[in-house]
């Protein structure tokens, strides 16, 4: 029932900008695009959420094109502590099938 597709893994180096793209071709009108971060042996933590265009907070930016069939999570100047799994989800207020999928494993190297 996965509604999103993300790369399984990505590697980066400290100080670089990382962009993780999520495909969601069948996104519904009332779906919100939401990203969570999970460190080993911890529960996921909310990063950012958006509906359309661009959203930015102190941690990341989220870019959503007009057709909303994909989205890109941008992490500026990553550090070693950004090594984690990043999940892209589609959430709506009628949804009881909250599925995190496999996520993208980001490895940040020195």
């Amino acid at each position, binding site marked *: *029932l996965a509604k999103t597709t993300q790369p399984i893994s990505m590697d980066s180096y400290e100080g670089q900008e990382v962009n993780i793209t999520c495909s969601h071709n069948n996104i519904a009108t009332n779906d*919100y695009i*939401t990203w*969570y971060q999970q460190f080993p*042996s*911890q*529960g*996921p*933590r*909310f990063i950012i*959420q958006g509906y359309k265009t661009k959203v930015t907070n102190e941690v990341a930016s989220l870019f959503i094109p007009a057709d909303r069939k994909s989205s890109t999570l941008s992490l500026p100047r990553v550090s070693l502590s950004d090594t984690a799994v990043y*999940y892209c989800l589609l*959430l*709506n*207020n009628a*949804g*009881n*099938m*909250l*599925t*995190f*999928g*496999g*996520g993208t494993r980001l490895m940040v190297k020195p």
Partner: protein
Amino acid sequence: NAGVTQTPKFRILKIGQSMTLQCTQDMNHNYMYWYRQDPGMGLKLIYYSVGAGITDKGEVPNGYNVSRSTTEDFPLRLELAAPSQTSVYFCASSLTVITDTQYFGPGTRLTVL
């Protein structure tokens, strides 16, 4: 605020045994959720609740039961444990609607032998 707390942190069960995983939140959130996460996989929703006295099934409810008698507590009951229920269980809560930020507990690592 302690946020979302879960007990126990670890548990080993024998096949056929039963147990209850406890989850408590002190943020006065209406919505609460139970997920399981198998090794190397994403989270799957087991059950969720939109308020005291109201629960609903998620993607993988078979073998589990829940109750929500208070706003704060949302216990998950495993009846007749099976090896397939070996997993890490996470409880989460959100203030109101599902699109609100979910706050997760530290998880319970369960092994069924």
